[in-house]
């Protein structure tokens, strides 16, 4: 017998409709113990049940700002990126965790697109 863990955020569903397909979900055919399924689903819901506004990517370029060099050298999945959108009122600061990146190195230039996933609720 397979077992299932299901978690719903009724408030979010009422506004956005049921959203069950992001990030590779639903997850099926796992080897998780029956008793661990529901806590797993609850933890995912707590993290992603109210994610709308997010920091998607940041472009880094050593020609635009040479100080990028050190962070790019040490850049790794799991790093934290904090960005404040200025020029809007009120200003908005969002935080993302690095989940991927694309380096482009040519002579005298190192540019990188940093992709992030957020943990910030925004509904």
């Amino acid at each position, binding site marked *: 017998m397979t077992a299932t863990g299901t978690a719903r955020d009724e408030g979010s569903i009422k506004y956005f409709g049921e959203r069950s397909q992001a990030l590779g979900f639903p997850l099926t055919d796992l080897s998780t113990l029956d008793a661990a399924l529901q806590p797993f689903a609850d933890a995912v819901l707590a993290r992603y049940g109210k994610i709308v506004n997010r920091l998607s990517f940041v472009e880094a370029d050593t020609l635009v700002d040479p100080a990028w060099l050190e962070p790019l050298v040490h850049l790794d999945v799991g790093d934290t990126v904090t960005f404040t959108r200025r020029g809007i009122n009120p200003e908005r600061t969002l935080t993302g965790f690095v989940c*991927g990146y694309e380096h482009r190195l040519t002579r005298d230039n190192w540019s990188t697109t940093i*992709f992030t996933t957020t943990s910030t609720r925004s509904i």
Partner: protein
Amino acid sequence: MIGDQGPYDPTGFIEGDPSTYPVPLGGGYYYAGQYWTLTAAAVIGGDPLEVGDLLYVVSFGRAFGDGTFGDGFIGWNTNGPWDGIEVGFRGVSVSLPAWEVPAPPYSGCPLGESMPGWRIVIDAQYLPESAEVRRFGELDFGDELFGDDINLDVSTMPWNDITEQNFGVSITVGNTDGNPRVRVSEAQFDFIDETADLFAMSQPESWFGPRVGTIVRVGVLAPSLEYHPLFVGRIESVNDVHDQPPRLVQVDAFGMSFDTVQTLPDWTRPAETADVRLTAIGVASGYVWGPVYPYPSVPGPSLLALPEPENVVAREALDVAAISARWYVNTAKDGRLRVRPWPEPGGGQVITVTDCNDAGDTGQNRVVFGDINYLEDGDQVIYGDGAPTSNLGLLSPSVGLFGDMNELLNLVVINNKDDTP
């Protein structure tokens, strides 16, 4: 002369006493790229070194107060000549497995004028022409590939610097949305190799250079000569498109986790913890690039048995086992597999980014970057001396703040597999 300077017995080595230093072949000055092979174990620069390890000469310049009048110039001569008072030594341990061996000091090429002192190093594992490799007529049918060393494996194969002929590389790591199924890392290189000195297409020359299957890596050397790997992978394709001179060779490489993209026939597992299962999958897939990084916990969470024989792809089995434990599998920068908790908890370096290079909080002094064509128009390049251009954080030319439902999961469904035989 640079390169191998012969053997050196470090028994009497005293840091700061040039009379105890190894001497370049033929005497004279030291130059970047010279190294000696140790004939005895020693601790140099705080690093324990073994017999056979390499000792590279390095120099960070003569500072005021070093030596006496007339001993040498104050300052730094990038690549030499250096005299004894200007130099130090840095060991490179070749006895370490390949994934831990750093690129030697001064290898690769300078990154460019805007990044003074930094070097990019692209090196590949292959046997130099002098090595003993299998040639036609040796061994029996099916024993080894021609050109393969019959004694070495990837953990001991030497790294060879191939940076000089490169002028562009792009590296893709991870994914764009935090999905726990992480795609394999990838690198693409453009090499100018006009006369096939590097990427030969004929044999036996191709045995002594990088080719399909060769492990290649990219890293940078900091001004302190500390090595930072960025990517390790195996060459998947070498494309020599005959068009017009110069000969441009495009090389694609996939990260080492690509080696786990193979089928495990009739795969079954007992009930066990996640760390045990992940290790078992790695072993069964023949994955050779070093041990997996420490698991988030040992023992990991318990997993159901997989009693029904099934053909599975090892990489998919790795992902399923990891996700079942609320972990995920990605690739570390030295190419080794790494398992992290999922959802990603963060915890690495904190990078603060701004779209504005002015600290003023209102008004026209603020410069907000939207879309600037900085590569083709030097007028808009903010070109500095390494100091941050903003006291608000690192300046980014483009930042994506999205409001969408791509990461929204308000109905989470997870189920497991039937574990009854």
